[in-house]
């Protein structure tokens, strides 16, 4: 018989069941908190950037299975990436990495992309505030 699990790929369910990088990065220097106006879900992404490389990323998400899985996936994808490369990550890319999402769940992956952008913007703002642009 079908249940809610059947809507999702195995990869999505794996990331839902065993989410990677849950929590708050210690000594984070970038934080993005975004809300999803479509359904009201919230994601908080914290990153630690050193020499323009994202060395650590963790998430906390209040949302559906797809929101949790995309959050988990995005943290895996950004780790070790330069800021420039990380900014290239799109919700589409996250979805593809998860083996796709059901149509009604596509907007959930936007949460992950936006949280990443917000965290990077926050990092850049922090940097400017500490050492004003030369």
């Amino acid at each position, binding site marked *: 018989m079908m249940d809610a699990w059947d809507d999702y790929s195995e990869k999505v369910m794996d990331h839902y069941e065993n989410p990677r990088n849950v929590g708050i990065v210690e000594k984070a220097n970038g934080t993005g908190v975004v809300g999803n*106006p479509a359904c009201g879900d919230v994601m908080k992404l914290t990153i630690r950037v050193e020499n323009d490389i994202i060395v650590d990323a963790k998430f906390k*998400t209040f949302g559906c299975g797809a929101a949790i899985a995309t959050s988990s996936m995005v943290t895996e994808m950004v780790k070790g990436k330069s800021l420039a490369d990380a900014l290239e990550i799109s919700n589409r890319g996250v979805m593809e990495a998860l083996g796709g999402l059901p149509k009604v769940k596509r907007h959930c992956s936007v949460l992950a992309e936006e949280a990443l952008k917000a965290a990077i913007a926050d990092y850049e703002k922090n940097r400017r505030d500490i050492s004003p642009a030369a």
Partner: protein
Amino acid sequence: MNLIYMDHHATTPLDAEVLAAMMPALTSEYGNPSSNTHAYGHAARYMVDSARAQVAQLVGAPRPDDIIFTSGATEADNLALKGIAHAKDYMPARNIVTLAIEHKAVLDAARRLQKENVEIRFAAIDPYGVVDLDDLAAKIDKNTILISIQTANSEIGTIQPIREIGVIAKKHGVPFHTDAVQALGRYEIDVMRDHIDMLSISAHKMYGPKGIGALYVRRGLKLTPIIDGGGHERNMRSGTLNVPGIVGLGKAAEIAKRDLKSESERLLKLRNRLEDGILRRIEHVRINGHPTNRLPNNLNVAFAYVEGESLILACRGVALSSGSACTSTSLQSSYVLKAINVPDFLAHGSLRFGLGKSNSEEHVDIVLDLLEKGVRRLREMSPLYDMAKEGVSIESAHFSRHARGK
């Protein structure tokens, strides 16, 4: 892979006794009850008549003829509202008084009638979803053609003061319709005692087949049919009768009446076990709906700081439903929870448990374990839980950015 079915408000499995009763009508007894020239027709007519009597008995209808068979409760609701409105379309002004938490079949039929200049008035409800009787009476005037108020709500289980509503309706001389789909077989109802003029019935919510229902219509009440044709069902619903379905509905009604007391007592015990277990084992939960005036098989609980779909996933193998926006294709959270002012973040984490015949204490205990574990795990992941622990009010929290739509 559902092992435990706890969504009996959505539908119920077909009772084996009901299926057995239907078998002749599905096989050898295939006559059309309208054929009165041969034995096939007579046999079918006899089966339909017995079923009509069984349904009449379940709701306390004085005559079997007061039961009009329909394709289900959606049609019955549509017939009740549109049938009255169209029968009274000579009136210069018409209004219907109902509730914002009614079933969609009532609300959408009402919305359609608005286009025909029928005014729709919503009587006030309290935070449990119970109608405010004073406001109801105040909403009625000489142009009120119908009061339509459900017996019990399918999401939060709240039972309305049906008899008091019936008395008010009678005093004002306004017909009273109630959608009793969720209540039948779980709560005693009697159209004479409760002054009900029309009552909607569905077979598949009480272990009968899908695709069949009925509308009780008090003798003397005039309805304009919404389906025209051969003039079946006292001219109120044309169409060759669905004999197997009708036989199934009749049998389901007979069993519902027979088992009403024992089954509702059993369900109440199970529900209380589930409710007590949740309240004892899980923090930050809130019961949606009335604490006591509630269907014995219903429990609707908000688990704060977690989202409903992810919690359903955590209860793998259990069939449940949620008021969360994330489980609906429209991405809207439950309109019923909204109407009783459940804040969005709580509606989001609301699950509906609908217990039924197949459920046992063991099922309840399995679900309790899954819930406890699932809620703990999801709260560890929840930014809202952190905010709450830090004392940030969630409803006023601002996010640094809002994700765009799709």
